[in-house]
C-alpha cells in the first residue's frame, strides 16, 4: 500500500466484504441478502481503488478506477434483476401460503 490512507481503506474494504458475506450466510430474508451482496461488492471496490492510490500528488492508476466504475454499474443491474426475482418469490409464497385474496391474479396481472 502506498500510504496509510490506502491501507486503512483497504482494510475497511476487507471488513465490509466479510460483513456482507456473513450477513449473506446468516440472514433469511431476501432483501437483506441482496443488500449484503451489495455491501460485499462495495468492500471489493474499496480494496481495488485503495491499491490504485498513489499518494497525494501522483495521479492514481486509472485502470482499477475504470474497473470499479464498470463494477458499480453491473452491480446495480444484478441488484435490479435480483429484486424482481425476489418479488416473484414473495408472490409465489403468498399464493402457496394462502394469503388473503391473492397477491398475484390468475393471469399474472398485478405483479
Amino acid at each position, binding site marked *: 500500500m502506498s500510504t*496509510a490512507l490506502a491501507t486503512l481503506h483497504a482494510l475497511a474494504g476487507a471488513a465490509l466484504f466479510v460483513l456482507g458475506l456473513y450477513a449473506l450466510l446468516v440472514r433469511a430474508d431476501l432483501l437483506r441478502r441482496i443488500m449484503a451482496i451489495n455491501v460485499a461488492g462495495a468492500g471489493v471496490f474499496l480494496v481495488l481503488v485503495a491499491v490504485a492510490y498513489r499518494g497525494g500528488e501522483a495521479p*492514481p492508476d486509472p485502470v482499477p478506477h475504470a474497473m470499479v466504475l464498470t463494477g458499480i454499474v453491473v*452491480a446495480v443491474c444484478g441488484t435490479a434483476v435480483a429484486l424482481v426475482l425476489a418479488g416473484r418469490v414473495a408472490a409465489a409464497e403468498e399464493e402457496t401460503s394462502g394469503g388473503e385474496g391473492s397477491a398475484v391474479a390468475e393471469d399474472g396481472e398485478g405483479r
Partner: protein
Amino acid sequence: MSGALLAAFDAVLVGLLLWLAWRALSSPEVFAGIVAFIAFGLCMALAWVRLRAPDIALAEAAVGSGITGALLLAAWDRISRPPNARGGGRHEPPAGAE
C-alpha cells in the same frame, strides 16, 4: 487542512462506513436497513473522494446510493405490502417484517 485533522476525518469516515453497513444488514426493520444502506452509499462516495477517485464518487452517489436505494425501496414496498391484499392508503409494514 493539517494532516492530523485529515487522519481523524478518515478514521471517522471508515468507522461510519462500517457502522452503517452493520446497521443496514442487522437492523430489526427492513426500512431502517434500506435507509442505512442509502447513507452507506453516500459515505462511500466520500471515501472515493478521499482516495482521489472523483469519477467513481459521482457514479457511486448516483447509481450505488440513489438508484440502488430507489430499487430497494420499490421492491420492499411491493414485497411487504402486496398490491391486492389491502385497500388504498398507507399502511405500516407488519411489525417485525424482515
